[in-house]
């Protein structure tokens, strides 16, 4: 059911584009699904592949969204770089050895959440720093990081549910 995964992935990319273009209610929250998309890439895709996908995906979002070109790519490539070590750290070597994709049903919400929070934190720290470019006070960046992390984590859990369909 790879086709199903691809469609879900594509829909989530579109959802991310919509979030970037239309979700401007507050400057303190930035919603992102991109780390979850990279984390939930099929495990048969290695780090090199994930790096290029992250770069391409980041640039695509930057290009179609009202953002700076290169900003999402800059923040997403490191997530792809740490994806394999992070998965091995939290879920063990099993997912890559057996080429099993991440699923909430198998690994539980807690471990999935932990992996998501680490990936999101890495992404958001780079994104918020590069976006602010030293012009924002520390407290603003800190509040934005915490609020965005919480909101994006909830949204990403839904995305992971959608992507980790057992039928895949």
């Amino acid at each position, binding site marked *: 059911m790879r086709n199903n995964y691809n469609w879900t992935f594509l829909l989530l990319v579109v959802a991310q584009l919509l979030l970037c273009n239309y979700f401007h209610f507050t400057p303190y929250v930035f919603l992102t699904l991109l780390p979850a998309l990279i984390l939930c890439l099929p495990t048969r895709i290695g780090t090199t592949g994930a790096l290029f996908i992250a770069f391409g995906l980041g640039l695509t979002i930057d290009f179609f969204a009202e953002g*700076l070109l*290169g*900003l999402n790519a800059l923040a997403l*490539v*490191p997530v792809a770089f740490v994806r394999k070590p992070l998965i091995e750290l939290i879920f063990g070597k099993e997912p890559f050895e057996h080429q099993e994709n991440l699923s909430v049903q198998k690994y539980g919400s807690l471990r999935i959440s932990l992996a998501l929070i680490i990936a999101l934190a890495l992404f958001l720290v780079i994104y918020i720093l590069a976006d602010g470019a*030293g012009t924002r006070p520390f407290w603003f960046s800190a509040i934005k990081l915490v609020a965005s992390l919480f909101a994006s984590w909830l949204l990403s859990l839904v995305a992971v549910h959608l992507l980790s369909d057992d039928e895949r």
Partner: protein
Amino acid sequence: MPREKSVISKILIFAIFVGLEVASLLILLNNGALQRTWIAGISHSFMAKTWGATQSARSYFSLKKQNDELALENHRLQEAIRRYENSFIASDSASVVVVEDGFSFTPAKIVKSSANSQHNYLILNKGSDDGIRQNSGIVTPKGVVGIIDAVSRHYSYALSFMNTEMSISARLGRDGVVGPLVWDGLRSNGAILKEIPLQIKFAPGDTVFTSGYSSIFPADIPLGVAGTGKVVNGATNEISVSLFQDHKTLKYVTIVDNARMEEIEEIEKLQEEKR
């Protein structure tokens, strides 16, 4: 072999990661002026720190050279001080004399003094070879020190002001009444201004000067400040004076010689004979 392949693979992945990050950054810098300024600032700060650290390291390693240069400079300055001191001693021994209103001033150094008896004395390093004569005064910028009592070729013996036999003519204020000033016999900076008429008003804090009535000391050398007064025998006031010069801390003095002293004494003598 698989291990080597794994290492190469990891290096390759890292290189791709760095390459993609650099590419993202370059794209970002081309599109965001704010980001360009920010990165430029970070870059300049990094370069400044790197250069600063390099400079510090360079300075550290050049410390030995700087120390050597400082030692040479120190040596040169010490030589200059020594030359200056030698020239000062030479001029001192030649007795630099400044003449003013008939008074000549000769710098001298106290080589011995007493301060614990009622008849204190001083021995100065200037004698008849330096032009010092008996009955010359000894002063400092802070007051009167004593009077030369005896002179040898190289030394002078002087009666200190801290001597109960010593009395100098002093004036209360610049234009006030004149009276003899004597040591109080107690303190090294204490004196008593005597024979001040009762009708003369004074206030504690008034300055006491040399009167210039004696032929030994020039007029208007500040001596000290008046304190409280007390009536003696119901006829005159005695005023305590706090001297500016503490006689226990003396080291360098000036000998004052009045070149017209003989002329003054002669005219006095002549008048006394006429009577």
